[in-house]
């Protein structure tokens, strides 16, 4: 397998604040790659940096950032606009606000295809109907002429997904696509994404903070903390043998039926994601880590824990074992 999206040492800064600090990420062709972490860890910023759509004042730099062999760093804006929505598209967290309220669903979907492929409006509308059917929207012909406010949240997210697929993209970036939806719709959307991945040979970069989703759909996982990818592993391995204390902390926060004991509180990680000042060195998690010792203030080497599994922590695995209470 070759890497479809290959990012090495991505740095994103907003003025003096570093939002992403040397994150590396590889999304292979045809895989679902999950980017996990708390709010404010730089997950969405990473995705926007790939799209080159950082908010005003944002600056990105990286050792390498390539998409299907194209170097994204040196790509002119015009060419990047040609990739966006065409070979790489994105869906958002908030389906209620992600569609332009002033135009019908059909015209917004058709617009994407006419823009990138120069298709006629009739062809584009035909494709829109086809894709709406594919993403499980009933009566797509009727939906075509409707405005976004006439659709429910789940329907709008399906429309967003269909719109993202209009040009047959290679990569779909999904930024918490199910967070705003209720659980049943959430399951439907995840199932839909999984089947679309198989059918269209799509790679998906799924940004989420929900480990339940990760366990269900991800092939590989990158755990982000304070702008760094602190652990990368295939999904099964991450859940069975998490290495980084942050990953362990995240996993202990998830209640699993049968494992939770009523007399014990559910796991939690004390504190919140810190602001990283310029010139910060060492492990960013040390202020919240129960195992932190002095050496955590120094540069942390990336350690390997088996094939395709590495993490950023100085501590030996045995030092991380939970202390007997």
């Amino acid at each position, binding site marked *: 397998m070759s890497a479809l999206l290959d990012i090495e040492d991505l740095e994103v800064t907003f003025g003096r604040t570093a939002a992403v600090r040397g994150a590396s990420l590889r999304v292979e062709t045809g895989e679902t790659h999950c980017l996990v972490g708390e709010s404010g860890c730089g997950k969405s910023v990473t995705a926007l940096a790939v799209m080159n759509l950082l908010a005003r004042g944002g600056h990105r730099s990286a050792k390498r950032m390539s998409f299907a062999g194209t170097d994204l760093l040196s790509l002119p804006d015009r060419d990047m606009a040609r990739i966006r929505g065409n070979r790489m598209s994105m869906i958002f967290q908030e389906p209620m*606000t992600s569609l332009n309220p002033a135009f019908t669903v059909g015209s917004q979907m058709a617009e994407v295809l006419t*823009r990138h492929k120069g298709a006629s409006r009739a062809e584009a509308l035909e494709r829109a109907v086809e894709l709406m059917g594919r993403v499980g929207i009933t009566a797509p012909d009727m939906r075509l002429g409707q405005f976004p406010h006439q659709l429910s949240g789940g329907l709008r997210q399906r429309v967003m997904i269909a719109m993202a697929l209009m040009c047959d993209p290679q990569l779909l970036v999904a930024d918490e696509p199910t967070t705003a939806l209720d659980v049943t719709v959430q399951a439907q959307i995840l199932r839909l994404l999984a089947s679309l991945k198989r059918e269209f040979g799509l790679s998906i970069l799924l940004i989420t903070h929900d480990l339940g989703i990760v366990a269900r759909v991800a092939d590989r996982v990158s755990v982000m903390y304070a702008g760094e990818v602190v652990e990368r592993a295939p999904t099964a391995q991450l859940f069975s043998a998490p290495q980084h204390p942050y990953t362990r902390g995240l996993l202990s926060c998830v209640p699993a039926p049968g494992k939770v004991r009523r007399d014990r509180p559910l796991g939690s990680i004390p504190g919140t994601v810190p602001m990283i000042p310029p010139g910060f060195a060492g492990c960013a998690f040390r202020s919240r880590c129960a195992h932190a010792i002095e050496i955590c203030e120094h540069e942390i080497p990336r350690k390997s824990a088996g094939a395709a599994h590495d993490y950023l922590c100085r501590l030996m695995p045995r030092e991380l074992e939970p202390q007997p209470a």
Partner: protein
Amino acid sequence: MSAPLVVVQAAQTTRVGKTGFAVGIVIVSVIAAAALIGNALVPADPFVQDLGNRLKPPFWMEGTQPEHPLGTDQLGRDYLARLIYGARISLLIGIMTVITSGLIGITLGVVGGFFGGRVDDVVLFAITTRLSIPVVLVALAVVGLMGSGLGLVVATLGLLLWDRFAVVARATTMQVRTLDYVSAAWCAGASTRHILMKEILPNIASHLAVVATLEMALAILLEAALSFLGLGVPPPLPSWGLMIAEGKDYMFFSAWVIFIPGAALFTLVLGINLVGDGLRNLLGTERLR
């Protein structure tokens, strides 16, 4: 417990607002219809003088003439015909001014709000400069220096009344620019032009429509004021402001000479403002989402 109260209040506001909106629309469309086709219905010519029939009173007073339902002015011209022709002038000035000032203000505001930074600084400076200029004074000076005329009045008012358009367009653009559907459009590879024309403009249009009604009413009043001062529309064109000005010498003996154009002006401005209020209630900020 407070939630239901709020709902009731909102419902009441909309009911009152809806009545006002309907009244406003009726007023404006009646006046617009009169301006468009009124001259065909009223046989009299607004420019033909008849000095033997000066200051004939309107139909509700003694000594009226059936062929002049609203009487005649100091030169014996038919007042109804002049009033209808004046409606045409008022609406024309209102609409043309709004188009001119709207183009200037919306362009400046949207560009400033969208691009921000230096561009926005320039736009803000322009807005501040414009706000520090007294409209009536400059309009008087320009018209006084360059002579009066319909085109000049429109140009002067259009070049002066764009500030509210710019302020509202700038603020709403800033709001809309950060919304998800704009980001989504960027992600779908849209061009800056597309974002401005299709994502931003249609979604701030409701706010601009409200501003347009207010500016139109203001422009009509200003034209009347300028014409009253003899610096607006030149005679013999029948502008409502000019009719009031020409009638002011007779107001003590024939009060209707200034009452009729005054009432017309009041009704039109009221109607436009009611439409504006109604629009604001109907297309509240909810539409932004």
